[in-house]
């Protein structure tokens, strides 16, 4: 193992951050498989706007950690072409918000390559996502809804260090294109240990982040932590036993895990940071309604951001985004229904 490997490797038994988990996965996969390479803006010697790729260029060279022009269409398209030829590209969006620029080539070209042309297109598009960081309307987005809607793409959005690490490994190894959303609020706030062994986390499997019996909160990414906070408070103050399901994979969704928790608690709150209308909570609600209507003792309710471009001032951002107190209030309502 090289420098980075040792550096982070040493930390394996101790705690590393969410961000380091991603970096370590990139490192491990690049070392394992010479066809893995990274491309993106400022990701080389500079290590990226958030330093996720720091140290990779020094270890693997400029040719495998490519500083690109400011061209989201260009780098996604180029990744697809390289992927067809057997490479395993990992594309960084400097902020995930700019994935909007590549919407055509991702949804029309990449997503359909296997189906319409039997062309393999194994690639990862990753980038810092999400709010709670005073980033304003163009550095805080959660664009998952537009992509879970696209057959042919996979979407993951981890909330823990082990998942950040393990899902990145699986994403790079996947035979299709995986969008890997990284929550920038969690980058340096969440710490954890990497598991012994390979540690790959399968795509498509949710995680029970907390067991409970009275109510299920289904969520992912940063709001997993808000849900856990709320669950503790509800236990403490109301004696409510709340189960928290961390989806981790948004496409495909883990229908089994969703059904299991719904049929266990019979009450569901779906929580996400994304705006409400057209967000993934609707899809989850529909799936539960279709599969488990008979098990529901209360309406499935959603706690989400307001349908508003995310404003930048803390007072406004906090108002628009869902907070722990919102989850608490909503959970009480559903539990009491």
């Amino acid at each position: 193992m090289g420098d980075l490997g040792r550096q982070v490797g040493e930390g394996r038994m101790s705690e590393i951050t969410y961000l380091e988990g991603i970096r370590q996965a990139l490192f491990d996969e690049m070392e394992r498989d010479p066809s893995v390479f990274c491309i993106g803006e400022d990701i080389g010697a500079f290590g990226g706007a958030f330093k996720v790729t720091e140290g990779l260029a020094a270890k693997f060279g400029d040719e495998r950690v490519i500083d690109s022009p400011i061209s989201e269409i260009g780098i996604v398209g180029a990744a697809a072409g390289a992927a067809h030829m057997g490479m395993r590209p990992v594309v960084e969006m400097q902020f995930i918000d700019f994935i909007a620029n590549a919407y055509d080539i991702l949804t029309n070209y990449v997503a359909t390559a296997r189906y319409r042309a039997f062309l393999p297109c194994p690639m990862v598009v990753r980038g810092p996502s999400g709010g709670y960081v005073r980033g304003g309307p163009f550095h805080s987005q959660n664009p998952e809804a537009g992509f879970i809607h696209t057959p042919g793409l996979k979407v993951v959005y981890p909330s823990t260090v082990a998942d950040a690490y393990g899902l990145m490994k699986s994403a790079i190894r996947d035979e299709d294109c995986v969008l890997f959303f990284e929550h920038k609020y969690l980058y340096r706030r969440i710490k954890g240990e990497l598991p012994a062994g390979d540690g790959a986390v399968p795509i498509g499997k949710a995680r029970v982040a907390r067991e409970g019996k009275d109510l299920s909160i289904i969520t992912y990414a940063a709001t997993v932590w808000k849900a856990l906070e709320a669950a503790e408070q509800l236990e403490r103050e109301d004696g409510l036993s709340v189960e928290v399901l961390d989806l981790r994979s948004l496409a495909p969704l883990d229908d089994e895990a969703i059904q299991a928790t719904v049929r266990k608690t019979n009450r569901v709150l779906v929580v996400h940071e994304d705006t409400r209308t057209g967000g993934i909570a609707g899809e989850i609600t529909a799936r539960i309604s279709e599969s488990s209507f008979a098990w529901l003792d209360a309406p499935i309710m959603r706690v989400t951001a307001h349908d508003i471009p995310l404003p930048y001032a803390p007072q406004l951002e906090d108002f628009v985004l869902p907070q722990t107190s919102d989850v608490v209030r909503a959970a009480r309502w559903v539990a009491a229904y």
Partner: protein
Amino acid sequence: MGSRRQATGGARQDAVAVERRTRNKGAAARPSALLSREQKLELYYWMRLTRTLEERLVALYRQTKVVGGLFRSLGQEADAVGSCFALERRDIMSPLIRNMGAMLVKGAAPLEILRQYMAKGDSPTRGRELNIHFGDLDRGFIGQISPLGDMVPVMAGVTLSFKMRGQDRVGLVYVGDGATSTGAFHEGINLAAVQKCPLVVIVESNQYAYSTPTWKQTAAKQMVDKAVGYGVQGLQADGNDVLAVYDVTKAAVDHARSGGGVTLVELITYRRKGHAEHDNQSYVPDGEIEWWAANNDPIDRYHGVLLKELGFTAPELDAVDARVRDEVDAATELAEQSPFPEPHDALQGVYADPAAETPLWFREGTRAAVERNERAEGWGTWDAKSGKGA
């Protein structure tokens, strides 16, 4: 639009001027001079095959056997064939809708194309994609998608992989004069230029994008001018002179192969048919099409060159024509017999894993939703009296 009409007409003169420029090169310096007699005849074969196959498709289209639109490359056969002929087998090419000739050169079979157009189940895409939207990495061509320009960044990536792996391979991508206006073209060629990818970008100046003449597409005087803005080599040739096309593309391919990076090649040609078969070309100035048909048909021109300059005989060329007709006849017969796709094949292969989608709950025989939902009592029956399922 009066003065602009002349501008369009002016393309004639440009074409001639450019032709002269290309032909003036000392014959010895021309790569086409090194082509064998067989290869020279092959060029004629591919062009003739393109035209005859397209004519057959028109007949099938009129019999409503073609599903969807039909796109012709009439008058552009030299552009497609001559350029692709400059590639090696290991090189990768990405065609556009008017590059059926290039696909044939790369090994696409008339039978495949016929099956595609007829949406047959044994067509290369099994009925999933239209017309010539298909590819084969083994034979070295990648199928286009409809959104214009997207293949340029994709081919930037294909050729980036060649560079990264030190492979002695070159990529070639076609883009219409209209499609140069897309952001994808720009981002793709720029990225390839910076990375010095071994890529040839062929801009097909066929004077129109659907109904839109080139002067409404760009204010650039000529497409080749765009090369300088990307810092790449720019070359231009008469796209209706198959040997000139071969020569200019070969130069670009050699440049790429020797590490020189990207070349933007402008081929000047003319789209004699409408955007697709249904298009009545109402927007074309009177006489323009006729002028090109009479004076600048690429097959006629090459036919003449073969006879007058390159020492071929009329019977030799007639034999090619006959061979082409036979091949197209045989392929048509087979294609007509091909089965249509099985509906359930639609479920296969959106992902590698899972390998297939499941039919949705409301489809006959799929009662997953019913079985999952304990309280479900009826399926497909309804008792009007009780207001409940039986």
